[in-house]
């Protein structure tokens, strides 16, 4: 499913070169549940952004379902993001003036899907996340956990193959966090590949594969819940 070979990402900061990723090799199979951990600045977000085609490696190859993504045009990359990848962010990134339902509907609208085929899908997604009675609320009328669940509904509405979550619980209290993790694990059980960046060791222990990063390198990659 996901195949990184010798991927490098270098940022030029003034005269200096900052290596965010160095010679990263990573293969993730379909349906895996992977956590990425490591100290701040170790390159976790950079890796996730490259996996999500928001960023391009400076060196190396990224193959997604066998297709070399580094060759893709900006348009094709957007198309792949739209149909294959769902993002979940630490800060939710809901559009503040849109209702929960409208936020969830956004990917469908961007993809140009007809109106009559949307409403049902949106309602179903909200229902599944226990937000049916919050559909018309705006983000500022929702709790943090509810906001993140709306974001999860939005990330999954296109039925993507991969879910990329960057510290999804980083901004939530324990209970809401556990709630959100339970939701994400359910998506994984339904067959979605999940890659999750987290600082929370307890959460990291729950995944069946843990990747440890340090200074732009993959330090450790171990399988199976301990």
């Amino acid at each position: 499913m996901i195949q990184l070979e010798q991927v490098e990402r270098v940022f030029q900061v003034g005269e200096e070169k900052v290596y965010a990723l160095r010679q990263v090799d990573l293969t993730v199979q379909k349906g895996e549940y992977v956590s990425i951990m490591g100290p701040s600045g170790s390159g976790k977000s950079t890796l996730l952004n490259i996996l999500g085609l928001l960023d391009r490696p400076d060196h190396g190859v990224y193959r997604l379902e066998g297709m070399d993504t580094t060759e893709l045009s900006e348009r094709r990359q957007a198309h792949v993001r739209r149909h294959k990848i769902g993002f979940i962010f630490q800060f939710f990134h809901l559009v503040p003036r849109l209702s929960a339902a409208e936020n969830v509907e956004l990917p469908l609208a961007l993809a140009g899907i007809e109106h009559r085929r949307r409403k049902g899908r949106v309602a179903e997604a909200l229902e599944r996340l226990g937000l049916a009675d919050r559909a018309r609320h705006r983000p500022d009328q929702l709790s943090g956990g509810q906001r993140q669940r709306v974001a999860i509904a939005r990330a999954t509405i296109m039925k993507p193959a991969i879910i990329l979550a960057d510290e999804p619980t980083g901004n939530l209290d324990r209970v809401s966090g556990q709630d959100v993790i339970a939701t994400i694990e359910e998506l994984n059980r339904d067959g979605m590949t999940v890659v999750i960046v987290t600082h929370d060791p307890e959460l990291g222990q729950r995944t069946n594969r843990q990747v440890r990063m340090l200074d732009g390198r993959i330090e450790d990659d171990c399988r199976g819940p301990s």
Partner: protein
Amino acid sequence: MLIRDASKYALQGLVGQPMRSSLTALGIAVGIAAVVLLTSLGEGVHRYVLGEFTQFGTNLIGIAPGKTSTTGFSGAVISNVRPMTIEDALALRRLPRVVAAVPVVQGNAAVKYRQRSRRTYIFGVGAAAPEVWQMRVAQGRFLPDDDPRAARAFVVLGSKVRTELFGRDNPLGQRVRIGSEHYRVLGVMETKGQMLGFDLDDAVFIPAGRALALFNRESLMEIDLLHAEGSLSSEVARRARQLLIDRHGDEDFTIVTQDQMLEVLGSILNILTMAVGALGGISLLVGGVGILTIMTIAVNERKAEIGLLRALGAGRRQILSLFIGEAIVLASLGGLAGLMVGAGGAWLLEKIVPALPTHTSWRYVLLAEGLACLIGLLAGVLPAHHAARLDPIEALRAE
């Protein structure tokens, strides 16, 4: 993305900032209102002036002595200008397609009846004047078709002269004095009103030959031809020119067809309307700068949202069109408000000041709204381009 969704998204973006959006739209609204109001006034004046000029009929050709060349020298400079005579008018009358020819001499003189006297315009004309100038006789009849070289001393009064001299008395058959001669009143004209500030009712009509003698002139001031409906004015003018050249031996006269005159007048008035419209357009420019400013601010404020849209699968082109769309929606809504204010203002103006003719032309209304959309497009391009160029990761980090 469907157009409907894009416009809904743009609208929601604008509604999210109601105060700011309406103030920005106001800038465009003022500009469009100014354009519509000013062009309405321009069109009104245009129609008014053309109406004034065509109230004498539309198949007219005027011939005046002297050659007005394109260099602007008047006939007086040319030494051998022959007088234009009543015989010329009679000859022109016999041309094919010419329905009537009116010799014209005009001057100022006192008209006296008993002790009353009034200085007024004296028109020396022929019997065909009412037909050519589309005037009607209210009472009695117009001058008879006498031999113009020995016309009897008859006069037809304009409606104002009639009331001034005769009050409630019946003027028909009465004798008035013009200069040293007595004239018998044959009729009274219908009220015609003013034409460009020139009171046509404050005038009397006498035979052209007598007017020449009265004002001690050799030459007519003008000959007006009425040509048949449906015949080409330029063709009739060409024949008239040939005839007069044969008679005079030289082209010492100027022919202006009404078609030409209306054309020149129309283009001058069009330029006038355009000019006042352009003046209103300047305020549109200011409104456009307002949109540019607000859209730049909006893009900066909504960086995180732009990053999100990119993450959700929006390409650069989609971001570009979303923000341009928002600018266009903003401008066109402002434009629509401006249209209503402008057209309403023009209508109100005409109701309050009836002397000020206004006419809201669809052509200019559509043009103005199109202009508003164009301004939105132009003002939106730069900020939208900026939005599309944003790095999605940087944009997502902004909060």
